[in-house]
C-alpha cells in the first residue's frame, strides 16, 4: 500500500512510499530512521499525534519532525 511520508529531518521532502499492510507507526519509524529514537521526533499521522502501535492505512500522511533543531547566529552562519 502507498502512504505519503513527509520527512522534516534532513532534506525535508515529501515522498510516496510503498509499505506492507499492517505496518504500525512504530515499525515504520524504525524502518525509515533505524538509528534514531521516536522520542526525539514529533510523529503525526494525518496531522494528528497517534499512539506508537497505530496501524497505517493506504493514503495516510505520516510526518516526522525532529524535536531538537539547532539554530545559529549570523556571524557563525
Amino acid at each position, binding site marked *: 500500500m502507498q502512504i505519503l511520508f*513527509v520527512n*522534516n*529531518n*534532513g*532534506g*525535508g*521532502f*515529501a515522498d510516496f512510499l510503498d509499505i506492507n499492510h499492517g505496518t504500525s507507526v512504530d515499525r515504520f519509524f524504525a524502518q525509515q530512521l533505524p538509528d534514531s529514537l521516536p522520542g526525539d521526533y*514529533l510523529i*503525526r499521522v494525518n*496531522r*494528528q499525534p497517534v499512539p506508537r502501535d497505530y496501524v497505517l492505512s493506504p493514503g495516510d500522511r505520516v*510526518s516526522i*519532525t*525532529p*524535536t*531538537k*533543531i*539547532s*539554530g*545559529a*547566529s*549570523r*556571524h*557563525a*552562519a
Partner: protein
Amino acid sequence: MPSEHQDAWRVITLVRNGLQRLAENRLRNQADKYASINPMLQRLSTLSRGYDHACRRRFTGACRRLEPRIADQIRQLTHELQGLMAGRHAPQASLIHQPPTALPSPSFLLAELDQIESEFGSWEVLKGGSSLYVSTDPITLEGIHLDAFEIELRLDAFDRLDMEQPLSIHALDPNWASGADDVPHPHVRDERLCTGDATTILTQALREGRLADYLLIVRQTLTTYNPDSPHVALDDWDGIPCHDCGCSMTDDNRSVCERCDYSFCEDCFGCCQSCALYLCYGCLTSCRFCKDETCRECMKPCPECGQACCPGCFEEELCPECFEAHQQKESDHDDQPKQEIEETQDDENTCSQPSPPELSETPATPEVPDTQEASDIGFARYNQTSTIQPLAVDGGGT
C-alpha cells in the same frame, strides 16, 4: 461569512498568491542566468565568421590575429558555463531546480490551519494584515527562563524565500540577554531567528504550503539551544562578572587579561607601558620611580640594590638611585687635591718601576784609534752621535 472563515480565506489567498510569485521569480531568475551567456555566444559567433571569411580568402595574417581573440572568448564562455553547472549542483540549488511545485489547494491549506490550531492552541491574522501569528509556550533553556514567543509568518514575503525566511520572532515578556536588548533568545536577534540547521527544511515546507510543519519546525528551533553558535551564550545571559570588582559585563565590553586570562571590566584593566600588553591591575604594578604601569615580567631588579625598576628608568643598567649614587661617587673622586694624586703617583712609581742605570751628564770620552785615517772618520762620526740622554720616567698611574 463568520470572521474566522474570513481569516482562513485570507490566509489561503495570501499563501497561494505568495507561492505563485515565488515560483515565477525562480523561473525568471533562472532564465536570466541562462540568458547571461547570450552576449558571449554572439561575440564568439562573430569572431568565428570573421575567421572563416579570412580563411577562405587566404588572409593568413588576419587568421593569426583572430585566433587569440577566439581563444579568449572560448575561455570566458567556458568559465561562465562551468559557473552555471556549479550553481545547478549547489545544495541550495536543489530547491531551485526542482520541478515547480503545484500550488496547494484551498482544502489542503484549510487542513494546515486546523493542524496549527491543534498544535498551538490558536492562530491569528490581524484585520487588514498579511501575517499569520501563533504563540509558543514559555521556553526555558538550561535553567534560563525566556518566557513565551510569538511567531509571525509574513504571508506577503514568500517571493523573497530564497534570500530570507519570511519570519519574525517577538518576545512576549522578554528576558533580554545582559547588555543586548535585542537578544531575547540565544538564536534570535532583532526579531530575526537564525535558522541554522532548520533552513533547508523550512524552505521546503513553505514551498509546499505545509504551514503547520513550518511553524512546528520554528517552534522546535526555539526550544533547542545550540551552544556552538548563539548570539549570546546562556552562560553569559546574566552577564559576565568582572574578576576584580564583580560588576556585570557583556561579551562586547569585557577585556581578557593576556597574562591570567580572566575577564575584567574597563575600570579594572590597563596596559603595560613597556611591552604594551593589555593586563589586569593584578598583573600590573607601578614603577616606584616613574609611576608608570608595568607588568611584573618587565620589571627587573637593579644589580646594585636589588630593587625592581621598569626598563625605561634604567641608566647604564642601574636604577636611578644607584646611578645617581654612582655618579656622585665619581664626581667626588674627580675633585681630590692634585698633590695627593701626585704623591700617590710617586709612591706608585717607586715601588713599581725598575731602577734606571746610573748616568753621568758628561758622556764618556771615547778612545781615539791609533790609525790616523780611521780616527779622523770614526772620531768625527762618534762626536756627532756621542750625546747620551737620561731615561724618561712616566709620572702618575692610570
